[in-house]
């Protein structure tokens, strides 16, 4: 048996390296799926919630919209207002006991993380939409675009760019918070660590490794997101075709302040 801290680290890595790697893989998979699906849910909810209600609309349409808005607000309140660890238990055991559905733990994990993230994303996207001056929405209406068209072609592309840091935050939160899913036996990296720690009762050493793994995952993710942000902010250059003296010339301009 090793006597030093690093000796133990060495031994644990040799013995459980693949276990840690598999766990890290599952963790990342849950974070990627949960954040992506959650983001799509957020976009959809935000588009629906910002749908303008015309006074001239028929009563049934107004009723439908009010019901929909109520349901969407309720969704957001419920999933933001309860811990994900509790949501996981309720969904997993609820399905098992009352629907006689033994959903695989990983599927339950995807479901819970996506729907939970969606509730947060809906608010983040709404904030992004509010940050775009409403003149652009008005101009979109004034040339005849529908709500859906103006959202997808004009408002959301800008809103998404401004909320990207917040979306990145959600991603990082999901990498870390997926650890709570160990309560429904999802084999993510925290669950794997507990199994590994149990054998030699070396909790500190194992969870030291676990901490480093989480840090590598989150650090890599934030750097990648920074790159995406840069990419989405668009080209800093544009070309002016022709000048007063020379109609053939093409002049490259750089945007100021970049």
């Amino acid at each position, binding site marked *: 048996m090793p006597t030093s801290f690093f000796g133990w680290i060495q031994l644990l890595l040799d013995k459980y390296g693949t276990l840690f790697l598999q766990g890290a893989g599952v963790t990342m998979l849950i974070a990627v799926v949960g954040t992506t699906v959650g983001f799509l849910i957020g976009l959809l909810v935000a588009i629906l919630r910002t749908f303008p209600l015309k006074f001239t609309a028929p009563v049934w349409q107004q009723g439908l919209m009010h019901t929909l808005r109520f349901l969407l607000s309720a969704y957001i309140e419920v999933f933001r207002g309860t811990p994900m660890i509790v949501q996981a238990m309720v969904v997993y055991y609820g399905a098992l006991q009352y629907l006689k559905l033994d959903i695989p733990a990983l599927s339950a994990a995807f479901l819970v993380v996506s729907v939970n993230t969606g509730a947060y994303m809906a608010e983040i996207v709404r904030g992004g939409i509010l940050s775009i001056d409403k003149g652009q929405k008005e*101009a979109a209406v004034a040339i005849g675009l529908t709500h859906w*068209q103006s959202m997808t072609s004009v408002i959301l592309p800008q809103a998404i760019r401004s909320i990207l840091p917040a979306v990145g935050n959600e991603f990082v939160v999901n990498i870390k918070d997926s650890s709570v899913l160990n309560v429904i036996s999802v084999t993510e990296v925290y669950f794997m660590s507990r199994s590994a720690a149990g054998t030699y009762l070396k909790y500190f050493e194992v969870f030291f490794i676990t901490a480093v793994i989480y840090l590598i995952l989150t650090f890599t993710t934030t750097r990648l997101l920074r790159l995406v942000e840069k990419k989405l902010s668009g080209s800093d250059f*544009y070309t002016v075709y022709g000048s007063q003296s020379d109609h053939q010339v093409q002049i490259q301009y750089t945007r100021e302040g970049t």
Partner: protein
Amino acid sequence: MEGSMANIIEIGSLVKHFGKNAVLKGIDLAFPKGQVACIIGPSGSGKSTLLRCINLLETPDGGSIRLQGQDVTEMPTGLLHARVGMVFQQFNLFNNLSALENCVLGQVKVLKRSRAQSEETAMRYLERVGMLPYRDARPDQLSGGQKQRAAIARALSMDPDVLLFDEPTSALDPEMVDEVLNVIRTLKDGGLTMLIVTHEMAFARDAADRVVFMDAGQLVEDEPPQILFAQPRNPRTQAFLARSLRR
């Protein structure tokens, strides 16, 4: 059907409230096809609201607005907006799109034109407003005057029957006002009906066929510019013109 078909827009007893505040107190106006009308008046007189009611950016509370005899509230909104264009005080260009794409978007999505045809139309109007060289620039790369000219090209690209201008030069630096007004002047020859809310009295005097003076939600005076500026009859018009021309 009331009125003659020569009028492209007919407004009858138009009423609009914001809360308890009556902004339009029964406006009656008709505009023949091809007319260039300037709407002037003090801030808060309801000029902009009148304009915004015509393309239903504001929902009227009473009265009627007809476009070539058709009630605008009964028209499909896409069709109404394709036929009545609008140029805003704050330009409101789509900031994520180039000047060219700003002009193409509505044509493709609303008029269902092909991409090639839309680009061709957009280029034609960008050239007309002198913005063709800047077609690839995004709004944050343009000056105020350039933005407004691109916004005019965007509205023209939809080939509207009527173009509404809501204080098109009020947000511009003084030296850029003329470049925009000159573009608007060149549009007069095209037979386009234009309703222009403006504080530029010199422009109203030399470019408009007709000047409408509004005050406190009412239509006060409605004359050709030669008459309205030379011999305003109503004391409210006289006071307003005295104030504006002194500046």
